[in-house]
């Protein structure tokens, strides 16, 4: 269990590098992926994210992360099914002024899509990306930690 949680954290921490993931999906071994799935299912039953231990769907709310400079906070709700992120909802996005609101409108959908794609994503960073992504991944990490990923 401990090991699998660390594995999951390592993967999610990849998101923190502005959506960094295994750069070569072909090398992502099936056993590694299976390990995450199995352990995440176990995690969901022990965290009580679901009312039944016959399903592995869990929902968790991440930390509200202040992205700094008065721009505002970002907070995510994450739904995980069988060790896969199936939905990410932004409960709060930075919108304290027109500029940060504009960035949020553009960046958050991108980040959601990137995170959902992550298990097959092949990008370790994005040149020209917004730093809203960093608050996003911090909130995402905290939410996933709650469901044992």
């Amino acid at each position, binding site marked *: 269990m401990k090991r699998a949680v660390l594995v999951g954290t390592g993967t999610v921490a990849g998101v923190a590098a502005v959506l960094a993931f*295994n750069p070569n999906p072909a*090398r992502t071994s099936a*056993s590694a992926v299976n390990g995450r799935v199995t352990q995440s299912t176990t995690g969901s039953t022990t965290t009580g994210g679901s009312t039944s231990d016959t399903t592995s769907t869990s929902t968790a709310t991440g930390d509200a992360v202040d992205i700094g400079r008065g721009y505002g906070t970002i907070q995510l709700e994450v739904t995980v099914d069988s060790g896969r992120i199936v939905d990410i909802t932004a409960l709060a996005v930075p919108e304290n002024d027109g500029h940060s609101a504009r960035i949020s409108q553009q960046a958050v959908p991108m980040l959601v*899509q990137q995170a959902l794609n992550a298990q097959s994503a092949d990008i370790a960073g994005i*040149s020209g990306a*917004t730093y809203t992504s960093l608050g996003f991944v911090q909130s995402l990490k905290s939410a996933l930690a709650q469901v044992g990923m």
Partner: protein
Amino acid sequence: MSAATFLPGRVRTRLEHVWGTVVTLDVRDADASDAAVDAAWESVRAELHRVDRVFSTFREDSVISRLRRGGTHVVADDVADVIDRCLEARRLTRGAFDPWAVEGGFDPSGIVKGWAADRCAALVRAHGLRSFTIDAAGDLTCRGSADGTAASGWPIGIAHPDDPQAVIALVDVRDAAIATSGTSQRGDHVRDPHAHAAARGARQATVVGPDGALADALATALVVSGVEGAEWFAALPGWSGQVVVDDAVTSWGPAFTQETPHLKGAKER
């Protein structure tokens, strides 16, 4: 065990709010201790804030602010180095990058971010780490490789200027810097130093090359010069560049091998 390809703690990131943006460190060295990563990051954080104190144009008491107010000053070696790099960039870009031709006086902000990223990368290397990136809000200095092997570098996407869910190219960045200017995502406003107006050469420009300071400056300069920037850019050994003009993508150099020539066909992510 094949799960070793997902070594626990293999991807380690750190984040700092500084310069009005965010800078991150992403370490992939599987054999490095957490203590080594922490020590490297502490030295990076100290350098980031030192650079802010010296070079910020938003700080009245910074060295650069004093320079901007005029007079003669004796400056430390690092400030002299930045000034030298600015002169070099102005010469190489035939004036498209010109930190002296801006309102308010000399402003090296267009080069300092990449310059500092390279310095931070050197600090991280000095702590024994080999595979990592310093990401200054989308301008990255990459060292080693993302998967800790010699087979590849860092796969870095280039933001689509219009579509936040797409990238327009994927670049393998090996021991190099990559910088993008003019993206609508960041709300950048690049000025044409000689027209005294918003730059109109390109909507977005990206460069990949061996030096972070120059990458920062060259990307800005290509937004000013657009496709005609090929006249000076093609003379730079070891550099690849890409400009987006309207919906047309034009690139130079070996780094850009996987792009689409037209934004309408950009790769969906």
